[in-house]
């Protein structure tokens, strides 16, 4: 295949990843198809649904609206990179489980990225702020209610510095 390839180096979830990619390969497709980080999802490919959200240099962006070549030299965090260093769920991920802030799971990685971005910047968000922060992430399963509840729950836990038991609750 004669499509020209470009060398990129991107730190993905803390690990440097080097690759040769066509210019038109989007960041989301590179993450999913080449790096096999399939946690980030494709929903629309025109920047509306937010299922493709990742952190670029620590801030949530739509990875379907970036070509992988544009990410050269930058840091990317995907949903796979949200867990604690020891592999256990982050407080936010755990709160999503506790409050059932998801159903089919397709929008969930994007939601987590958007919510984590919010909590990083605004540790005590109001309901309105939560809804605005996830306003660019569409969900068809949950009606958003339990997602908002989960984010609030996570914010409260983080605020009190509570290190409630990690991992699965009494399933």
């Amino acid at each position, binding site marked *: 295949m004669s499509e020209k390839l470009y060398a990129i180096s991107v730190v993905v979830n803390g690990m440097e990843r080097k690759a040769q990619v066509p210019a038109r390969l989007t960041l989301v497709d590179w993450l999913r198809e080449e790096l096999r980080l*399939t946690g980030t999802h494709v929903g629309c490919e025109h920047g509306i649904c937010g299922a493709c959200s990742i952190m670029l240099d620590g801030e949530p962006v739509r990875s379907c609206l970036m070509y992988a070549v544009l990410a050269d030299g930058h840091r990317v965090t995907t949903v796979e990179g949200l867990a604690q260093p020891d592999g256990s769920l982050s407080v936010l991920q755990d709160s999503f489980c506790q409050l059932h802030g998801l159903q089919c799971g397709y929008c969930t990685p994007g939601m987590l990225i958007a919510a984590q971005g919010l909590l990083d910047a605004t540790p005590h968000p109001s309901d309105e702020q939560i809804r605005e922060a996830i306003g660019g992430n569409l969900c068809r399963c949950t009606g958003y209610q339990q997602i*908002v509840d989960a984010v609030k729950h996570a914010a409260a836990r983080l605020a009190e510095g509570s290190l409630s038991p990690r991992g699965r609750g009494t399933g």
Partner: protein
Amino acid sequence: MIVGEGTAFRYIGKKRRTKEDPRFVMGRGRFVADIALPGMKHVALVASPYPSARILSIRTQAALALPGVHYVLTGEEFCAATDSLAIGVDTPKVTRYALAKDVVRYAGEWVAAVVADTRAIAEDAAELIEVDYEPTPHVIDPEQAVAAGSPLVHPAHGSNVLFHRRFVWGPVEQAFAKAEHQLALRVRWGRSATVPIETFGVAAQWDPGQQILDVWASIQMPKYPDQAARALRLPGNAVRVHYDVDVGGSYGVKRGIKHTVLVGYLARRLGMPVRLIEDRLENMRGGDAHGPDRVFDMQVAFDSDGTLTALKIRALDDVGAYAGRAPLQLGKPVSAICGPYRIAAVEYEPTSVMTHKTPQEAVRGFGQSPTNFALERTIDHVARQLGMDAIELRRKNLIRKDEFPYRIPSGSSYDSGDYHTVLDKALAAIGYPALVAERDAARRAGRLAGIGISTCLEPSGGNSAFEPLFNPKNDTTTWMESCLVRVDLSGAITGVMNTSSSGQGHESLVSTVIGEVLERDPAGIRVVRADSLSALPSNSPVGSRMAIMLGGAAAGAARKIKETLIEIAAHNLHCTTETIEYHDGNVAVRGHPEQCMTWDQLVAIAHRKFHQMPAGLEPGLQAKFVWEVPTGGALPTADGVVQIYPCYAFETHIVYVEIDPETAKPSLRKYVCGHDCGVMINPDIVHGMTYGGIAHGIGAALYEKFAYTEDGQLESGTFMDYLIPSAMEVPTIAIVDHCTPSPLTTFGQKGSGEAGYLGAPAAVANAINDALAPLGASIETLPITQDDLWRVIETAKSSTA
């Protein structure tokens, strides 16, 4: 066998984390696009730009010459090599294939499929395919489509009508003749759908050594492997569907049978794995996943005191250019044709008509939500005409709790309910008198403000008796579900379910039920999915059936395991099974606690100690349970009377809306839903789906529409124009629960997969119309847009000027 009222459940009904959530928050779901088969090729489609045209020629040489392209398939080859897809009504001349042959019937219909090394190359090649069309006359409006002289979508069929029948249940004409009042009303349910965030996708691989076609798909469909095999002219046991693919939402629409036959054919033809993941443009225009698109003409007869005596419902549904199960979406509402009301006489005249638009597919509720909307608008109009309060009118006509089981004129019996109590609870939760005062104060301050209410039913259980009702040649009455439960050598429990899931939490459902029956912690119970070759029969999650049917099957299988354990115990403790007490998987002789055995001991006997097994008992510890839907199994009478779904959940929505009179922008300020689906097996799952259903309903009521131009072009084919509500459009919602258990199910559970969606559009429409009432105006078409509101407000202003 029903667990008695007042039984305290140990696991059922308790707040529990689900089995599914952890893998999804980790990003470790396994959706169809996540599956990489070695050597897999990718498909892109060429779509018709015309709503109706003859295909004169297709030139593929340039596409085939592109490096990385393996094949270009057109209808010529494909339609000769495969069979037409199934249609739910008796219309043999209406054929349907994934690729058009000779003619195209809607803008977006697939004309050719390109197979290439990457999706990008496939799209490059698709652009190089030249198709010559000769446009022919088209019809877009359903009322024109039924009129004489209309262009025909399928000329061989002779008309555009796929189905038409007039059902008369009860003394309708007499009731209208002697009623003190009647009114007529036309309402429209605009074309929208549940549009999941994941598009449909399918990957297939043909194994020539074993002659098996493996299929992975984002699927929610009954009889999927069977229909795929049939269309591919393969034996039924040559198709293996892997149900352990996570489905990113479906709510009815993921019926990609045409995509599957296409990809299955290509995989076999080319000897390489092939996958098609719809992009969003393909999905919206050519995915054949639009929803009901209806015009309702309603007539209601009533007395001065508000008693509703008869209904006439005429429903015209535009299914687009082809039909799978879509016409049957006019049939499901027969199961609750008079809603939650005591109406003794009903006439129902559904017509399913084709136009040159994207085909319609099953959407959450299978036609019940549009019907509820039409009914609830009618109720509000009756209230208005009588000068009666809309809630009082409902109270008067709602079936009372002492009237159950209540048989409606079309033949279904409502199993149980306490509609008045749920209504009271919802009114209390929203603080109704204060809300009325708030609305009235807003009006005095010059704002448009309205309260809307709906009281609706969710038929559940999936007895799809509307199939034979709409097609007497289809005498299908079996609507079964199954579960297998195994206890392995280590004593660990595994439940095996036999279909796919798309967010409903079936693994949690099954593990909770098994745990409840066996008195073992569901946290340790694993639920896996068989593939279609090793599966027990399933009718898939449709018609709000899984809590009832899969729950019932899991309970049945678990009960058999429990009985087996008790038999082993009795045999080894030298007593009768009646004197064995079972607690938490351990057993003891009643009155003699020292004569006991543990779970591990019983398991060991079952698996290893044949010498200690009672005679005639199967070794090992596994049980399957396959069962028919309760109250099912009967064919309709000649008058079209039949019991359809067995269990009826109830919901009432109360909505407060304000509309800015200057900008015409509506804002949903308060939202309460009262919900009764009997016993909830996992409340978080039920609530979650109800919130989601309400969001779907708000979309259908205010935002979402597949809009067509006169030229038959889809104007809203991207997410920029098809407006899915975000967290900013969906308000905070409060749900209040009530529980009237079903007498027909294992634990008293009813289905709730469609909850919220069935009552939200009606309530939102009623609220908007209450807000417009002081202007003397109403809007009877969904979605209600800001532009629509502006027009009404302007007209009212100029007429009072």
